[in-house]
Structures are given as C-alpha cells and as structure tokens.
C-alpha cells in the first residue's frame, strides 16, 4: 500500500514506555494532523520513526510503501523518503546551510556522482525565495544563532529541497509570527500532492486554517485515541483534551 503505516507500536525511552500500542496510517496524497497534550508522545513517535537511537522500539511495525522502516539505518530512512522537521533542530557550527543540504542531496546521487553545483544553487535560491529566507543564510552555520522561527523555516527549506515522500512536521508552527506562519504554510501546501504524505504535529488549530488536513488524530498517553476530520481540531481548540480523556475512560 502507498502509505506510511504504523501498527501496534510500543516505544521505550530510558526504560519508560512512552508509546503504547500506537497505530496510524498516512496514505500518500493526504495531510494528517496529530494533536495531543504535552508529553503524550508526539515527538517520541516522530523520533522513533526516523531512528533516534535513544528510542527503543519494543514491538510493532512501521512501513513506507510496504518497506520496513525499522530495518533501515537512520540515513537510509531519509534516502528512502522519510523526513522529520524537528521540534528542536540541532545546531552545527562550522557546517553551512548550503553545504549541509548539498551533502544531503549528494547522498541521494549514484555513488561517486555529485549534484551539479550551478543547478543546485539555482534551486536553493528559488526555494529560499519562496520561504522568504535571505540568501546570506546559505553561508551561515546550520541553525547556529538562528531565531526560533528561522530554525523552523530552515527545516522547511530542507524539506522542499529533499522532496521526501513522507514528511513529519513536529510543531513547525510554534514560535512563528503570523507572517512566518503563512509563509511556512504556503511552503507546505506547495509540497502537498498525490505523491506525498504529510503528518503535522501541532498544538494549534491556527496552523490548520492554512494547511487544511484530511484527517486529525488525537494522541493521548502514547496512543491515538480519536480520529476525525478537520472539525476535530476545532473541538480540541474549544474544549481542550479533558473530554477526550473522559470519553476514553468511559469506553474502557
């Protein structure tokens, strides 16, 4: 199936189980949103999928178009089309944005071949323009001294250069002013398409006004407890999460 499929996922960090039987399917061509209270395990899901070594997968499966994700190295997952825009991206002093993205693109080339430098810069500058990122950022070290919003925009820049099949955006909207939010949302909408699945982790319905999701999932204590259409996001915005919890306990 052409989807990112997560089934019965259990993930432990530091001996503590965080994801508890989580299942979720993101078909290609769709945009889904995950909302959920702090600490419910949203970032854990994202990081376990991209393969951070601190996150131990105890059981469950995750596949991309049928390919077993947990069978791949971290870099392989990326090359196979998985992308995470981090909630807290790392800073890499001494590595420029331009060299970083170029290395990521070169990693996707046949062995011994590199992307054409001229074409690369042309693409890079046009994506930067779309995201309203000043050109002088190309020679700045990755995320070093960037404002919160600049870091988020730089994550989206990487995403638009790498053109992954499945994108997970972990709170890419937090820390953005309203203009930046629109720019980032435009950037994401531009990438929306039948060949790509996008999973948006957010606390705010506000973002979903700009990027209208096909499905909304509520995460609670390590699993998806409710799914619905975009109206679910409004409900959460109005009522908080307590009612979800009550519904949950009632149904057990």
């Amino acid at each position: 199936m052409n989807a990112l499929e997560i089934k019965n996922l259990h993930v432990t960090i530091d001996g503590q189980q965080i994801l508890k039987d989580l299942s979720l399917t993101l078909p290609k061509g769709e945009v889904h949103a995950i909302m959920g209270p702090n600490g419910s395990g949203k970032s854990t899901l994202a990081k376990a999928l991209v393969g951070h070594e601190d996150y131990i997968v105890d059981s469950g499966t995750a596949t991309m178009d049928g390919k077993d994700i947990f069978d791949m190295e971290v870099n392989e997952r990326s090359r196979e089309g998985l992308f995470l825009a981090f909630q807290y991206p790392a800073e890499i002093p001494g590595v420029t944005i331009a060299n970083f993205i170029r290395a990521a693109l070169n990693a996707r080339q046949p062995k011994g071949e590199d992307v054409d430098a001229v074409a690369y810069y042309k693409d890079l500058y046009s994506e930067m323009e779309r995201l309203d990122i000043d050109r002088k950022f190309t020679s700045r070290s990755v995320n070093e001294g960037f404002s919160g919003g600049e870091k988020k925009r730089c994550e989206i820049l990487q995403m638009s250069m790498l053109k992954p099949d499945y994108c997970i955006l972990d709170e890419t909207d937090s820390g953005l002013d309203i203009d930046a939010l629109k720019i980032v949302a435009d950037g994401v909408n531009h990438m929306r398409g039948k060949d790509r699945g996008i999973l948006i982790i957010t606390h705010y319905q506000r973002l979903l006004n700009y990027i209208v999701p096909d499905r909304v999932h509520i995460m609670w204590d390590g699993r998806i407890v409710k799914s619905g259409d975009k109206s679910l996001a409004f409900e959460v915005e109005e009522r908080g999460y307590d009612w979800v919890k009550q519904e949950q306990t009632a149904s057990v």
Partner: protein
Amino acid sequence: MQSMITVKSDSEFLSEAVFDHFLTRHSELPQWLVKLKQQNWVDYLALPAPSRKMETWRFANVKGLGVDTFRLAQPLAVEEGQSLIERSNRLKNTSGKLIFGNDDLLAEEELSEDLKAKGVIFEPLERAFAQHSEILEEFFMAQESALGSEKFAALHTALNRNGTLLFVPENVEIDLPLVSYHWAQGSESAVFPHTLVIAKDNSKVTFVDVYGAHEKDSSQLACGVSTLYAGPGAQVEYHYLQNWNEASLSFNQLTTIAQRDSNIRAFGLNIGSKHARNEGHTIIDGPGSNAELFSLTVAHKDQEIDQRTLQSHNAANARSNLLFKNALQDTSKTIFSGLIKVAEEAQQTDAYQTNRNLLLSPLAEANSLPGLEILANDVKCSHGAATGQIDDNELFYLLSRGISKPAAQILLVFAFFEEILEKMENEELAEFHRELIHQKLENN
C-alpha cells in the same frame, strides 16, 4: 638534469662513511659551508638520540626515530621526475615555482622579469650556494634548535644540498604566492629540504612548501629545516603542507623571526608521515609585531604527529596567537607541547596558545602539554587545550537527512577545521588544504 653516481653503495647509508662520500661528491660547495657541515657532522654523531626521559621528547614513541637505515636519496629516473613535475601543478596562480625530487631540482618556473629587476631572489640552494653565498653565509642555519631536535638540525646541516632561497628586498610586495614542491622517492631514501625566506623592510610575500612522495609505501626520511625572517614592517605568510607518504619518518623545524611591526601568518597541514615531528619556534624580536600560527592535522591508522612549539617574546607590545587543531582517527596519536615565554622586557605582550583535538575513534590518543613562562608583569597571556568527540546530536541530525556516517564525519571535521581554513585569504591555497584533507578523510 645532471647525472650523478647511481650505484647504491654502503657508504650511502646515514652512518660514519656517508659524510666523506657526500663531501667528495659536492666539491662545488663554498668553503664556509664545508666547514659548517663538517662541524655539524661531528655534532650529529656526538649528540644523543632522543629519549623519552628528555623533557622535549615526552610522550613521543622514540623507538621509531632511528635514521641509520636510511641512505642518501638517489637521482630520479627521467620518467619519475616527469610524473612528479606533472603532479606539482595544484597551484596555478603563482609568482614562481621550484620542484625538487630527491633533493635535485627537477623543474622551475622563474620569477617575472619585473620581480627580478626589483631584486627578488628565488633560487634553488644548489645554485644559491654559489651565486648568493654571502646571503647564505649570514642566514643559512643561523638559528639554533630550541625544542629538542639539535641532532636532526645537525644532520640536516651536514647533508642538506638543496631547497629554497627566497629574498624579498625592501618595499617589494609580491601578490601571488611562490611555491616549492619537495618530492621523495625510493625505499629508505633520505631527503633534507631547506627553506630560507628573508623578507626585508615593508616587503610582502607568501611562500608555500609542499612535501610529498613519489610512491605510497616505501619508507623515506625527510629531515627539513625552514627559517623565515620578517624584517621591520614585513608581511610574511607561510604554508607548510606535509604530505609525505605514510611509511615515512619526517622531522621539520620551523623558526620564524619577527622584527618590528612585522606580520607573520603560518599555516601548517599535517597529512602524511608515519611519524612526524614538527618544531616551531617563533621569535618575537621587535615591538609591534604580530604572529599568527595555525596548524591542522588529520591523523589516522597508527600515525604519530608530534608538534612542539615555542613562542618567545623578547620585545614589548607584540602579539602572537597559536591555534593547533588535530582530528584523530583509528589508533593515531598526536602530541602538542607548547610554551609561551615572555622575557622581562616584553611588556604589553599578548600571547595566546590553543590546542584542540577531535577524537574520531575511542582508540586515538591526543596528548596536550600547554605551558607559560612569564617574566614580564604587564601581559595578556592564555593557554588552553581541549579534547572532544563528535557531538551525537549533530551527527544524528546529519544522518537524519540521509548523509552517510563517513560523509557526516567529513563534514564535521571540516566544521572543526573551518575556524582556521576561513583565515586563509588566498582561495586557491585554501582549496589546496581542503583537497588534501578531503582525500585523506575519504580514503580512510
């Protein structure tokens, strides 16, 4: 190319007999030099071999430093020389070039008529000993070793016969760098490259020494000495790209003398050698002078790169800043031992010294011995050493974008080195450094 005796006799080994043999072969040398050589040969034989008990050889693996098994390098075959000339092409924009193979001059690109007319001298020592004997008599090996390699300086003085003399007269500024390539060839060959740069008042020059091997795996000995004189107000930039093969043993002593208001920038790069020993003595002799001393090392396998430095401040109001960075892979080992000495009269000195090591393997070993000896009371001095590993978060971030682990390591080593690479103003030279670093990291 002149033809010389090519038979390999026992007398070519660096033992008692070699020196007489050397002198008979080089009867053209001026008398003062012959005398100097004779004295140094005696000194060489008398001086003790390095031992770990000596402070200047602490931490060094001295067992690998025996030189008796090496013999004087033999002249190259024509096609070997030709291939080395072709490999001496990395820098396109230069004001002059000398190419040496086994201490013979293989080829040269002469100075422009304009620079010649201004009195610039850029000559191989084999000619300069005859044509500029008076300069060499004053400056050749005029500085003493201060960091432990007296024995190797004596050996160098006795058996050296080629290298570079670069003399830049007052007020002459040379924009493009001058470069000398020194190649070694043959099993157990010994070469003795020499560099003497004399930059007179208010002159400006950049000089580059590139050291490399004809073939990958035969063991060679390189025993070199370089001396830079920066006259009053002179600006001297020096690059030292050490890329001997990894079976080789190399010694290099660099002495830099900074006179009033001079500006010195030195960039060292250590790529090759099984065991390299570099000594750098910077002598601040004039007020207002400024010396910046940088070094990059990529060590892998069982390489040992041993660097000792001394910043001697003898004049007031001067500044020196040293930054040595080592990246270590596998079971490689580096030693950095640095001392800042500030004389009583050298008030208002600013002197800094930093050594940073990036361990890319749990089995690599970086030794650091920073030191200060300050007799003046009004100075700013600092020294520091830090050894770290690749940051897991940075590495994970790179991997998460599809970059392979080796490629990520290369990026992070360059990130670590960038602080020095970005200081190189000549783009072509900076690229040369980058290329050698890249090749080494890629082939690990």
